């Protein structure tokens, strides 16, 4: 059984109000559902993998608030059909989407859900990433709708994780000892000065190890890597957890429009970030 991406979408803040994970993830999710022409009520499980959120909210799961925003199976007593919905946050820095893909394979394999929605939304807790020069990420959301394919050769292959044997280059935290009354708007993202080079090297090594383990022909494979900017969609800053969604949309658009890419019939997702942790997964679209 293959698990395929039925639809994908991104969302940016309109800046008429502070950026919100609930709003952005909700819009990206609705965009994906609209493209796939499936109702919200058909989503069995929603996983939100975003790390940074409005007001540094830690309860409930942001996924529950997104579920409400999207209107997925809101109240089981009032509306038990077609089924109950379930949502939760899964956080693993930049590797969150691929972690969610991996658990999604287990959820589809065991019949725990028919459709899985992954949202990857990060916003600066203060509502506008542009106001904090030390915060590197864009206010941005991505959504992936996943389900089974009748084509056994299509979809995601195994997800593999890699851990570097050294301390992390990247940390994101709220220092409650110094935040005073500004805890809802403050955030620290600390990165070593040469983190980008080291993470890129780590990502390349992980991709090579994955390609070797699964005997992947890289000549026919388009690598969807950890993008450093989200400029292509008009966002300022790095896309962070939404990078795989953005990369997938860019790649599929490129394959459609670029004759030079006609030989690329599969994608290799590569994520790398805090930990240091990296993750890779091969993806083969249907009908290739």
């Amino acid at each position, binding site marked *: 059984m293959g698990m395929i991406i039925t639809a994908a979408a991104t969302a940016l803040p309109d800046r008429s109000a502070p950026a919100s994970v609930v709003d952005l993830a909700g819009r990206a999710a609705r965009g994906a559902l609209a493209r796939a022409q499936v109702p919200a009520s058909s989503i069995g499980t929603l996983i939100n993998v975003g790390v940074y959120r409005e007001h540094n909210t830690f309860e*409930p*799961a942001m996924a529950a608030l997104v579920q409400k925003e999207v209107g997925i199976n809101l109240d089981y007593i009032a509306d038990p059909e077609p089924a109950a919905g379930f949502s939760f946050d899964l956080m693993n820095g930049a590797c969150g989407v691929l972690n969610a893909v991996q658990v999604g394979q287990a959820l589809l394999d065991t019949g725990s859900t028919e459709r899985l929605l992954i949202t990857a939304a990060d916003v600066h807790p203060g509502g506008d990433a542009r106001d904090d020069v030390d915060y590197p990420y864009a206010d941005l959301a991505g959504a992936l709708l996943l389900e089974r394919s009748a084509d056994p050769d299509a979809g995601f292959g195994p997800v593999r994780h890699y851990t570097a044997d050294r301390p992390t280059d990247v940390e994101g*935290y709220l220092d*409650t000892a110094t935040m005073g009354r500004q805890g*809802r708007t403050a955030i620290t993202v600390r990165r070593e000065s040469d983190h980008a080079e080291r993470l890129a090297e780590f990502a390349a090594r992980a991709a090579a190890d994955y390609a070797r383990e699964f005997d992947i022909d890289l000549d026919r494979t388009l690598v969807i890597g950890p993008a450093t900017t989200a400029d292509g969609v008009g966002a300022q800053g790095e896309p962070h957890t939404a990078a795989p969604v953005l990369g997938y949309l860019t790649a599929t658009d490129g394959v459609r429009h670029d004759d030079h890419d006609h030989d690329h019939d599969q994608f290799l997702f590569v994520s790398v970030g805090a930990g240091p942790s990296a993750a890779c997964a091969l993806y083969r679209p249907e009908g290739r």
Partner: protein
Amino acid sequence: MSTATAHSRIEALGLCLPATVQTTPQLAALVPGLGDVDIEKITGITERRVYDPEPDAGEDSFGMALAAARDALRSSRYEAADLDIVISASITRFKDGSRFTFEPSFAAMLAGELGARSAIHFDVSNACAGMMTGVWLLDRMIRSGAVRRGLVVSGEQATRVAQTAAREMTDSYDPQFASLSVGDSAAAVVLDVSVDAADRIHYIELMTCSEYSHLCMGMPSDRTPGISLYTDNKKMHNRDRLKLWPRFHEDFLAKRGRTFAAEEFDHIIQHQVGTRFIDYANQTAEAEFGTPMPDSLSVVERYGNTATTSHFLTLCEHLRAGDARPGATYLLVPAASGVVTGALSATLTNVGV
């Protein structure tokens, strides 16, 4: 659909409880705005454990989670290096003293400290249903054959919200009142493949009724330096919310041609919110299912509401007391912000504690 592995089981449990006990009168003395409101009478909580603020004590969320994980592995047949996956479920993610951590994941750092170098790792966050969500995911990953064994762990410095509430509350109707019911702890559970019905998770099913996701929100305070929890207790725990689990569970059983009474649970573990909540939840369920509830296990009187760790703390204490019947069947019912509820059914015989 894969049928590689039919079931998972609870293989071992571990705990970490701070040594410091705070009685409810001691807590009440720190909340001048509450006047003579009887917290113990309302919550049924006599005392709770409170973290030692000294960094060397290792009682921040991360330190307690690490201690609970090591405690579980001491009782397990597995070593850290054997784990295929580590899932962390803390709500209060304090590390290095006062840093509320967003990345790297606690799970990545715990796996590194434990020596589970090759383990898949990620955090789940699902309010008080966090550990249950981690167990749900691990159960599915074991059943699908993706992993063979793994650890779900959580450490909670929950009383930090009580400190903020104590500073800011002015009456018992304050949305921070629920913060006075929390206690600090950590718990860990090891799951592996079940080859014997005497040790088996029969099912674990969860749902989120997000219509009510706004009724309990946690975030830093904007009045004083600290983190806060704001709960609409009246709406969060009203009779309609409490009917969600019995209706969901009854429908799940009915689809399999079964009834609640036929499950013959020996014990039920409700989320440890307070003694009155547990009684009310069981009474509502009795009316909904039309059958008596099994023996209800509770540690909330001694430990307060320990958030994500509540069910596995209660279960571990029960098993460690030594009077559990081998082959007894347990029902664990989460009740969490979101609103999340559901049911975990398990038979336990040889659990390392």
